[in-house]
Structures are given as C-alpha cells and as structure tokens.
C-alpha cells in the first residue's frame, strides 16, 4: 500500500479520526547546497564524488568551513541529514596533510560507534586508491580485544569510543596513548543532546581532563559537536567543551513530505484521567499497517513494552499467514550480530516491522521507513523528532503517529502542538561545577597528572576561566589522604584507581531495588530513587508498576530492597511526607514587586510519617498506618518563587483553599517543567510551603533530586514564567472536571477548586511583578 492509499484509509476511518487531536502535513523541503570549500584536498574531493556526493548541503559546507578555519563548531542536525560528513571531511583533510594527525570520536553508545566507523571506512577505502599510506580508524571500547589494543593506541588515526571508556580506560592510562595525545587535532562529540543533566555534567569534566592531558603533551584539538534540535545548542556545546563554538543551525538537507498525527486514546475514566492503554492502541495501529505491507517502526518507552508489542505483532503476522520473522524487536541486550542482521533486513525491506526502544533513534543506518509509531511521548522533543525522522523518504511522503499516554507530559504535548512544531523549548542543561561531580573528576585528574599549586581545573585553551575551587578541593583531598603536596605540586598518593568508582551515567546515590516475589523466582521489576522510596514502597504500600498493583511486603531499608507481590485490591495508598527545606545559599535573586524569586543551594529534609488507604471511585479513607523510616537530607540546587503574605486575599481565595491551590500549582509545575529542562519528571520535585522559613511567606520550591544539582534551578530562574504559562495551558486543556493526575492531581488532594486556584497561582508567576 502506498502513502496516498494509507492516508485515505485512515481519513475514512471515523473511529480513528475521532481520537486524532492533530493531523499536520509538513511540506517537502528541497535541498540547499553550497560548493565544496576551495581548500579541500583534491583526493578527498574525488573520493566524495565516488561516494556519490556531488555537492555539500549548506550545513555541511558551513561546518566544514568553520573547522578548516580553525574554529570549533556545533551543528544542529536532524536525522539523516548527512552529519557525519561534517566531521569526517575536515578530519580526513587534516590526516591527508599531516600523516601523524589524530582524531577522537565520542558517541554515546557502542552500537552507534560501530555504525559510524563502518561509514568512515567506506570513505577511507575510496580515498585509499589515491594515497600511499593507510588511514586507520578503530573503535576502542570494552569489547576491543586486548591483542588489538596496542596497535590502536599507536597507529589509529581516528579512535572511536564512548565517554565511559575515555573516562576509565584511556585518560588514566594516557602514557600508553602518547601518539594520540601528542597529535590530537580534533575531538568529535556526536549526539550531544544526550549529554544533559548528570551525564553531561560528568562528560564536561571528562573533557576538562582530556584537555589537561592534551596540554601536557602539547596538543590543542578543535571540537566538533553535533546536536539534535534543542533551545540552546551553542551555549550547551560551550558548557560541554569549555570552548567558544560557532553554531550551524540551518539544515540544508532535503526533506520529504510528512504527515504528523497526534492520537489520543479514548478516555475511560474522566475523573481519574485514565485512558485506553496507549500500548494497545499503538500495537493495533502497527498491526493494521503491517497487514497492508507498510514498513513500520514502533518506538516503545521500555524494553518490557517492546516485548509486549512484539509478541502481539508476531501473533498478528501469523494470523495473516505471513512470516513472523518479518517483525523484529530491537533493543539494548540484543547481540551485535543480531542487530546488524536486523539493520540489514530493514534496509533491504525483508523486514517489514521493527519494535524498538530509543536504541534505534540514534543515527544507526536502517534506511528510511514509511511509518513511525511512537507508543507514548518519547520524553523529549529532540527524541520525538529523531524517532519521527526514522520514517521519511526523500521521494515519497511518510507518516509519524504519536500515541499519547495519560501521563501529563503526553497530554500536554498532544494538546499544544506548538511546543513540538515551533521553536524548541528544551534546553540542554549541565552543571560541570556540581561539587560532587567536580570532586570526582579532580580526583581522577590528580591521578592522571599532578596539579600545580596555581592550577585551575577546566581552563580554556587561552588560559581563561577555570574552577575557582580547584585548590580548596585539592586540599580537601589531602585531608582525606588522597593527594600529597610536595615541591609545589599536588601528587597522587593512594592505592585506588579513582575512575573505577565514578560512573558517568548514574547518580552516586543508591536506589532501592523492587523485587517481585509473586512467583518462585524473584524478579527485579524496577528501581526507585532513595528519596522517593519512603513514599512509594514503604511497608504495606500498594505500588503501581505498569498497570499492575503490587503490595509491598517488606522494605529492607538497610539493604535498599523492597519485596513486593502482585495483588488486585480496590484501594491505593497515599503516604504523607513531611518535608522541610532550608536555603543554604542564594546565588541570584530578584524582587518582583510583592513577589520574589531566586535560585541557589538548599537543604531538603524529608521523612515519611504515615499512609492512608483510599478506596477507588468513592475515595473513602478505609484505614491508615505509620511509616517508620529514617529522615533523609539532601543538599541540592533549587529555584524558588515567593508570594506576598496576603496573596490569598489578593486572589480572593479563602486561606485553606489557597493552600490546596498552591499544592495544585506545585503538581502542575512538576508535570510541565521536564519539558523545559529536557529532563525526566523524577529529576525534580516541587515543594509548596505556606510559610517558607526565612521569608515567612507562601512559596514554591522546585528542587533537584541529585545531590548538588545539575543546574536546573538556575535554568528555571530564567524561564519560570514560560513554565508557569505552560502549566496554565495544561490545566485549562485537561478534560477532567476538578483535577486529575494528568494535570493538578486528584481533587481529593487539591480540593474541588484545585484547577481554578492553580491557574490563579500560576498567573501570578507569569504576570509578576503584580
């Protein structure tokens, strides 16, 4: 079935169209070309032509030009816009000029590195006909055989790796990589939007270490970064690399026409905001397309959902007597060979359907499919476009369908298409100076090379900037017997290998593991962060996972394990958390007439006190119990907004109702803020306080759930009005009567007028100064 037939089929399906909240036709865009740079090596030019590249897209030409002029650049690239050329061309040009030149490529995943190396090889092979030496490119990661490592270290012109390997396998052993570091000309960091939050804060410090080692060996590489569309690519890349960057944002690649459809499954329970399962809806749609032989990719948000959808689709294929091998799953955990086979099958068309986690959202070459179905909002706008870009042929139209879940962010996106189609509100946020992160990496850096007594960690190539706290942190490490000061330098003096203890991807704090004991074999069904655990998995709690209820038999706090078993009961539990927050240090503040706001460091203390059992539908309180768990304290970053003490009078709301309204507004902000900070709802927490200490006024605090914070507080200080505005939209567009978990929270928690009051409170934030 071709695209026109498919569109007609869907348009004539009243059941389908009645749940479509948006059907947008994106026009095809022609390519925008620019000539090859004058200075391009003739051999490289002819290799590119053999590679069927007759001209460069404008973004490729501009990026290559910046790099050839010796500048750093970040290029914003949609899927399949030929971004690898942006860095492969200048790198190969340099190697052709200077045989000893080296480049380091960083990709967020191993699978992606292998794919990119394959592409690079093709170009090098074409070049090989015209040059008298071998240009060698290798992947270096945990899978690299020990026997091959030595030659990679000494003779690899282009070494492709990931941040974790650079951090723990390369930098601490830099003396084995002398050739690389002495001659390093380029560092390529691809898919930088992945390095946001904690991961990015770590990577920025790994880059600081890398630059420090380069300086020791006398090299000063240029940086080339690629990013999906985000609100602040230049600022973000500059934070990540610590260098000035040129931005190339306009995409010159052609784009085929695309139909973008938002599908919101039917509401089942208006009061609770529960909708028909988006997973089921997505798999039904996919099954239908596959029956019509339409090549389709389905993205699901977890490995488990991938398997559920895959099982359904295989069954559907069997019913139509088609081979179930035409539908495949794809996710981390599959073996590399199997992945390669699936990628090939998709390119050749032998495989009709694939169900994937976001593993396939990265630039792995699978050709261009006809339809992409996203089972749930992928979590960020950048991911949504990358996934949607998996469907799209230059000649023919393609289709992307976003099937919304009942989660607040999904509901917000399908009701407010401008956030997706307009200027992206998502900012890549990192905080390389988070003290815990900084401490870890100064430790690793001291292991790699001694610090001098004047040295500032993280200086730019020109010697400016750098971390003020460097020397004090080193002194702290001396107190802890890690380094020793002698003859003007801080020397490493411990038996440990510090990189081993630092994981770039996960918070240092522990999680509580949730273990299902329903069956004979204990099974881990999830993890929950330490701070949320007392609320969600205390003894006797009813814990919801997927759509299944579990009873928590025992929370083993010491071992960080919660033992649960499946149940089907008519109630849920609601734990009361007593939180206290204290501002330790304010970084920035502003007064907005009667209101005020600021950001800085806070200390949050919380203790779960008791829980209530609440019956579904009637919301009767059918019992309660005590929770006996220790108090938790966290020092972290936060944004705060302070209301005048008489705010309820100004808004004409009774004081008690205002308290509920503040809580409702807090819930809303917690729901929409992730959209702006490109984060996960679990990255932040919003705390309403009727009498905030220090001010003795009503206040809202949005605090970060990672010790020390990764910079969300500072960002929210700049954009809180936009966030509050989005919050108002979310509340007003929600179909519920008086509050549901998709907007302000259940009416039971926020009162009958919760929606109304939340909007009033958020308006104050948008409009302040009053």
């Amino acid at each position: 079935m071709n695209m026109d037939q498919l569109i007609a089929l869907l348009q004539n399906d009243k059941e389908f169209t009645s749940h479509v909240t948006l059907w947008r036709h994106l026009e095809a865009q022609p390519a925008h070309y620019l000539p090859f740079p004058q200075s391009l090596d003739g051999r490289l030019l002819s290799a590119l032509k053999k590679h069927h590249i007759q001209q460069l897209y404008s973004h490729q030409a501009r990026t290559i030009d910046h790099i050839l002029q010796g500048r750093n650049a970040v290029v914003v690239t949609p899927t399949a816009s030929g971004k690898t050329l942006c860095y492969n061309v200048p790198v190969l040009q340099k190697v052709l000029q200077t045989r000893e030149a080296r480049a380091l490529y960083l990709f967020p995943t191993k699978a992606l590195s292998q794919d990119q190396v394959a592409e690079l090889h093709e170009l090098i092979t074409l070049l090989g006909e015209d040059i008298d030496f071998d240009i060698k490119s290798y992947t270096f990661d945990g899978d690299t055989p020990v026997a091959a490592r030595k030659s990679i270290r000494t003779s690899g012109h282009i070494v492709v790796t990931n941040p974790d390997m650079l951090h723990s396998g390369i930098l601490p052993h830099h003396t084995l990589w002398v050739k690389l570091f002495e001659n390093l000309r380029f560092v390529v960091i691809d898919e930088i939007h992945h390095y946001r939050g904690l991961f990015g804060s770590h990577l920025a410090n790994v880059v600081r270490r890398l630059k420090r080692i380069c300086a020791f060996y006398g090299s000063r590489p240029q940086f080339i970064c690629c990013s999906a569309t985000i609100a602040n690519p230049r600022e973000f890349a500059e934070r990540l690399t610590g260098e000035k960057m040129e931005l190339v944002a306009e995409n010159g690649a052609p784009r085929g026409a695309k139909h973008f459809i938002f599908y919101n499954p039917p509401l089942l329970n208006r009061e609770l905001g529960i909708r028909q399962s988006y997973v089921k809806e997505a798999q039904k749609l996919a099954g239908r397309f596959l029956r019509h032989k339409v090549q389709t990719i389905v993205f699901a948000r977890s490995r488990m959902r991938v398997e559920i959808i895959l099982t359904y689709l295989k069954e559907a294929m069997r019913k139509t007597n088609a081979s179930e091998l035409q539908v495949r799953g794809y996710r981390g955990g599959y073996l590399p060979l199997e992945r390669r086979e699936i990628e090939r099958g998709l390119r050749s068309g032998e495989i009709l359907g694939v169900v994937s986690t976001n593993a396939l959202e990265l630039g792995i070459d699978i050709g261009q499919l006809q339809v992409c179905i996203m089972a749930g909002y992928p979590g960020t706008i950048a991911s949504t476009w990358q996934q949607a870009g998996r469907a799209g042929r230059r000649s023919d139209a393609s289709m992307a369908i976003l099937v919304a879940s009942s989660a607040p962010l999904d509901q917000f996106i399908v009701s407010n298409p401008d956030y997706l189609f307009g200027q992206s509100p998502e900012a890549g946020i990192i905080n390389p100076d988070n003290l815990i992160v900084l401490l870890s990496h100064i430790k690793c850096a001291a292991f790699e090379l001694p610090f001098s007594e004047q040295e500032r960690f993280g200086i730019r190539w020109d010697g400016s900037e750098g971390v003020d706290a460097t020397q004090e942190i080193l002194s702290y490490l001396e107190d802890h017997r890690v380094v020793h000061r002698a003859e003007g330098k801080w020397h490493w003096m411990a038996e440990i290998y510090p990189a081993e203890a630092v994981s770039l991807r996960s918070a240092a704090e522990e999680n509580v593991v949730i273990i299902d004991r329903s069956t004979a074999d204990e099974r881990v069904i999830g993890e929950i962060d330490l701070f949320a655990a007392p609320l969600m998995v205390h003894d006797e709690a009813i814990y919801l996972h997927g759509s299944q209820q579990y009873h928590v038999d025992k929370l083993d706090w010491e071992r960080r394990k919660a033992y649960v078993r499946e149940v089907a009961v008519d109630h849920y539990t609601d734990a009361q958390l007593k939180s206290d927050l204290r501002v330790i240090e304010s970084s920035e503040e502003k007064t907005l007439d009667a209101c005020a706001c600021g950001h800085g460091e806070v200390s949050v203390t919380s203790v779960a006190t008791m829980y209530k059992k609440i019956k579904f539908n009637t919301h009767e309180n059918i019992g309660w119990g005590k929770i006996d768990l220790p108090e938790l304290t966290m020092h972290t970053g936060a944004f705060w907004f302070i209301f005048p003490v008489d705010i309820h009078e100004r808004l004409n709301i009774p004081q008690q109702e205002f308290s509920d309204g503040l809580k409702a507004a807090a819930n809303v902000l917690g729901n929409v803020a992730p959209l702006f900070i490109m984060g996960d709802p679990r990255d932040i927490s919003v705390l309403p306080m009727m009498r905030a200490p220090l001010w003795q006024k009503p206040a809202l605090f949005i605090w970060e759930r990672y010790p020390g914070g990764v910079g969300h507080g500072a960002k929210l200080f700049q954009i809180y009005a936009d966030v509050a505005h989005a919050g108002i939209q979310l509340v007003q567009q929600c179909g519920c009567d008086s509050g549901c978990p998709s907007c302000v929270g259940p009416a039971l928690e926020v009162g009958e007028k919760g929606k109304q009051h939340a909007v009033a409170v958020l308006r104050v934030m948008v409009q302040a100064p009053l």
Partner: protein
Amino acid sequence: MLSIKEKLAQLQGERSAPAHQAVQPSSDPQGMAELELLAETTPTGSVWRRQRHISQALAPMVDLAACSRLAGMDLALIAKSWDFRDLAAKDLIFIDTETTGLAGGSGTYAFLVGLARLHQDGLAIRQYFLLNQGQERSMLQAIGEEMGSAKALISFNGKSYDVPLLRSRFILNRLPFAWEASPHLDLLHAARRIWKGMDGYALTNLEREVLRFQREGDVPGYQIPELYFTAVRSGQFAPLKGIFQHNVMDLLSLAGLLVHAQRRFQLREEPQSRDITGIVRTLIELGLDEMAEGFCQSHLTLRPDAPWPLVMRQHARILKRQRKYGDMVRLWEKWIGNMATFNLEPYEELAKYFEHIAHDYGRALQIIERAWQRLEISSQMGSRTLATTALYANLQKRRLRVSKKLKKLRDHEGSAYDG
C-alpha cells in the same frame, strides 16, 4: 556562607571532620641515616640512594660465585633467546621496584627501585628512593643512566610490571625510555618453563620450592604502599627499613633463580620428570635438537620411572623434525611395547607417519588394525565408555580413509600394469 570544604563534607554526608587531618611533615626527613640513604645532588635535583654490597658470606642461600660465572649460552637457554648468547654475567642488571600499588594507570609509581650488578665477589646493589614525587625526574634520570651501562635486564615479572610502569613514569617526566627493546630475561616466564607444576609462581613459592629457604620477618607486599604513604605524610622514614630489606631479598632471589635454572639445563640438578617438557621444548625452539635428544635419552636411561608419554613425545618430535624416521618409528614401537594401559597416541603417530610421510598405506592399515585389536582387548576388561567409543570412531575414520587411498593406488597400479 559555607566553605567549599564544609559543603563537600555535607554533600558527602560526613558527620564530623575527616579522620585523617593532614600532618605537616617536619621540614627535614627523619630516619634517612637508619636507612643508610645518602642524598646526591644532580643537575635536576636531589637523588636519594643506598648502596649495599652483598658478599657470599652475607647470602649463604644464593651461590653468587656461580651466578657471576654464568656464560652467554647459559643465559640464552634460561631466557630462551639468542639475544643473550654473547653476554656475560657482568653485562646484566637486576631490577626490582617497590610501587604504590597494583591499580595501574598514571597514578601508580615506583618509590624504590633496586638495581644490582654481579661482581666476582658478590652482588652490588643500589637502591634509589623517592623522598617525594617532586624528586621523581632526577631519580629516573639517575636510574636511566645506571641502567644504560648494562646490556640486559633481569627481573621477576618485569616484562608486564616493572618495565611498563617505569616507561609510564619516564613519559610522565618527559624523559626518553629505551629499555622496551633491550634483552630482558623475565624469571617469572623462565620459571614457568623450567619448573613445571608448581603451586603458583609467586617469588616466595619459588624461594621455598627451588631455592629452599624462607624469608623471616619479611614485609608483606600488600602493606608496602600504605607504609610508604604514611612515611611521606609524617616525614618519618625509618619504618621503611623492612621494605629496603624486602627489595634486597627480591634481587638476591633473582640471582639464586638464575643459578638453579642453569643447573637444570646442565642436568646437574635432576629435574622432576614433569619439568622435562619445558626444558626439552626450550632446546627444540632454540634449534638445539641434538642437545634436546641427548637430554631425553639420558633422562630415559637415568630415570626408569620417567613418564613415558611426556619424554617420548618430546623425543619423537625431535626425531621427526630431523627426519630420522627410522629412529622415530622404533621409539613409538618401544612405547607400544612398554604400554600397560591402552593409549592411542603411538599408534596414531605411526599411522600418520606411514600414511602422510611414507605413503605406505599397507603398513598404515596394519598399524590401525593392531590398534583396533589392542583396544578391543582392553575394552573387554572395562565397560565401553564414551571415551572408548570416540577412540573406535577415530580409528574407523582413519581405516576408511587409508583403505580408500590404498584401493585407489592399487587400481591405479593395476591399470598401469594393464596398459
């Protein structure tokens, strides 16, 4: 406002100040005289060095005199490398380092480097000590100069540990490092070849099993880094005395192992039967076939209880390489003649020889039939196991192949005759 240190303490969840406050060392290091360390000023800075001369009387467990008489040939055999053929004992430098741990990477360094040279009247040891890391460059330069005066290195596990570590330190101090390509006799590798089936190859094991002595009051290796760190932090160096002694013992044991290894090749020290494979293989790999054969023969004569398979196999391999096929066939037949329990190996080797080298398919088939009968006899006594089944299958396969070849040959011969 909190200081950075206070913030860190809070973030790290520390309830009180760190247990270890930095102790400011006194300006002068204490205990250097007890360690017999002397400072020497070089153009790049101070170097602390201790010199010791170990005479035979001081080290009765090591035959230093014998060690100093080692010839190039002895060293070549022990090292399994002809690079040593033209060297003498005086050309060697023994090296052993004490380091800040086993973690590896650029944060691990050597704080004590022991170098030793052989003289007729003993072993001259120089130990270089790193008072603090600021002096590393001058220390490495001094070490580099001293190592440069020798022609080959002797170490224990130095190929994978000491040399790469020193290389890394030289690079970190931007000094050239030239010893990766030098002849290097790593006694750990040699010991694995020469003394088979040891209960681990830690130096202390070799001392007990080969050199027949045990250290008394030795500092265990795992304590060494922490002892050093404490000394540097406190400025009190006298407690490191044991580490200096440990390092001297390591160097002495290297000399001892060289002597014992040499005796193995001289047949002066009767090897355990299990050791012979390594020795013979070394000889073969060096191309010393006659010596290897002589070694096998004398061993078989001297030791009637020798493990036939091991020695025979080695011996037959030499004969095969030398194309002394007649002798090789006699050797395998001798094994069969002496065989108590069934072993396919000699039959198989004979069959292979007749099939692939002599192209005498008739005799090859005979050997296979003999093996078959012998196997039947022995398997009648025991039960038919999986292993026996495999043996039959092996023989059957070989029988079919050889029969086919034989038939082809006969057909061919027949037709040639007809024509």
